């Protein structure tokens, strides 16, 4: 029983971890959470949907196209809008991301309406695999493994490629990075592109689980924020661990306390963590400057 709960917690936790990772890498670069993250991912999922259903394109091509779209959308958002903010205080940047979120949400609602659409996916949510007495759907299995592979790739990219290291340098201190020859502006745009792709993968994995409509990523986005806050907004690895932890805790709460208020766990965790340890479980307190 307990193992079963943990297993399904890992599945939803994978999605939270992906969203949290996407949020944290741009948060580290700009200092603000990207509230448009969810809507950008939702839009990318719709691109895949349109290609598959309306144009009969194969899954691989459609998903690939959706990820390319997400990449361009991320770079475009940073280059066309975020960078043009006249007075880039935290408040103004947050408002920019909120504005983009509303605009994308409205566009998606306008184009595709509020109908709940079934999202075609090569792996079914109804077929199950047995591990001893733990039952996992093939979709969950796919979600967990895809998330693991993608996150491993992202961390390897940050750690072992020149570009990844340049990104980390820019996150730490953009000015110092520029002095050392890093094209900081291009790197920031690229960070948004990568973040958007990670978010889009989360959306593509969420859509077959529920149905596709413009509110697709509202719940995962809040959970992603909760996961990032829980693990630490400044540590990508912490945020990912926070995602898995949140998935498991939430499922335990749903099984033993109350199913109805399961979604409130995320908010509770945000409040508790911010109250007792604002830097998160795995974060370190940044020095404060006047």
């Amino acid at each position, binding site marked *: 029983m307990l193992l079963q709960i943990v297993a399904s917690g890992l599945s939803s936790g994978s999605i939270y971890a992906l969203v949290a990772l996407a949020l944290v890498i741009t948060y580290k670069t700009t200092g603000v959470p990207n509230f448009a993250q969810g809507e950008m991912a939702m839009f990318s999922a719709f691109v895949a949907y349109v290609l598959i259903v309306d144009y009969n394109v194969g899954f691989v091509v459609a998903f690939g196209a959706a990820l390319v779209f997400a990449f361009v959308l991320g770079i475009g958002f940073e280059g066309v*809008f975020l960078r043009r903010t006249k007075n880039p205080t935290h408040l103004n940047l947050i408002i920019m991301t909120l504005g983009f979120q509303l605009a994308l949400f409205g566009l998606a609602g306008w184009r595709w309406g509020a109908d709940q659409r079934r999202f075609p996916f090569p792996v079914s949510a109804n077929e199950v695999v047995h591990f001893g007495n733990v039952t996992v759907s093939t979709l969950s299995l796919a979600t967990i493994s895809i998330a693991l592979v993608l996150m491993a790739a992202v961390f390897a990219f940050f750690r072992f490629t020149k570009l990844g290291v340049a990104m980390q340098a820019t996150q730490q201190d953009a000015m110092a990075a520029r002095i050392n020859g890093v094209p900081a502006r291009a790197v920031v745009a690229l960070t948004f592109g990568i973040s958007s792709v990670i978010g889009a993968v989360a959306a593509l994995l969420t859509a077959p689980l529920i149905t596709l409509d413009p509110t697709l990523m509202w719940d995962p986005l809040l959970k992603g924020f909760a996961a990032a806050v829980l693990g630490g907004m400044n540590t990508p690895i912490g945020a990912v661990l926070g995602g898995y932890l949140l998935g498991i805790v939430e499922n335990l709460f749903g099984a033993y306390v109350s199913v109805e208020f399961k979604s409130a766990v995320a908010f509770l965790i945000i409040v508790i963590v*911010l109250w007792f340890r604002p830097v998160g479980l795995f974060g370190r307190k940044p020095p404060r400057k006047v």
Partner: protein
Amino acid sequence: MTPRELDHYADVQLLPGKAAIAKLVVLLAVLAVLPFVVPGYRIFTLNYMAVFVIVGLGLSILVGDTGQVSLGHAGFMAIGAYTSVLAMTELGAPFLIALPAAGLVSAFFGFLLGLPALRLDGPYLAIATLGFGLAVTLIIGHGSFFGGHMGLVVPDAYLGPIPLSGDISHYFLIVGIAVVLALAARNLSVTRVGRAFRAIRDSPIAAETMGVDVAYYKTLSFTVSAAFAGIAGSLLALMNGFISPGVFSVTLSLMFLAMVVFGGLGSIAGAVLGSLVMGYVNLRMDAVQEIPIFGPMLQNFSDAYMSPSGLPNVGWVLTGSMIMLTIMFEPRGLYGVWLRIEDGVRWLRRRGASDGPAAGTG
């Protein structure tokens, strides 16, 4: 620089000079005549806009003056609405008690949310308030005491012996409260408290070294702002006759933030103006095809390229684009545009004045 701008006592006056009093009198006269001039079905729209103005004033104190972000003001509004309705149905309280009760209960929750806010910077606070707004609607939606997702019907309200039914009586109540609260917000903003708020916004550490009690004023700002939203929620319940958790969604919170940004952060006039514009947009977009000329064009475009049922979403596209453009080109919003026009006029006048003698000597 006129001496008045340097005079502290003139600065903190509620209505500086005769011109301001005259403006207020004209405004009140216009507001008093308005419901008898516009067509009857538009009065509901006016009421709706006035409710938005009340939320906007409160949010402007929090976001514009104190520099704290809130993405959960629809939650405070919900708390106010449900408090006043439940006070009337469960406790049998008259509306005159239920309305301030809504403000008080909402203010209490604002105080509670303000406590963790003491330790949090902008980004974290945005996430926490977003979660707060979601949690409120979630709890209301699942509690049978709150009517669940089906919502609650608002009972008939009386102001003493006068029945508060019909749009015109609602109009005078809501607009009257909006005017009083606007004056209160202005008074708060220009005096000691408002100065403390702005000092905290510009630099919390500097404010603290100058003797401003940062913890006290930050919490106060949240409390006052939540009280405004609570009162607005109670009035919204009254004018709608029905409340449900769906009304107070996260998108409504974002709409509230959008209106103070669009109007101009940190100015009362901007908050009022932005709320009026956005309130109108928000209400009209449900029937956008009825707007002359523009409406049918949009309808045709929508039928051809978009989904026919999704047309009301144009409102969100418009709202989102408006605040992005505001931040990109004029972060001070409509109020900033007004300041620029004033500057331009002054510059033209001065040039006209200096041109005169120059032409005479030549």
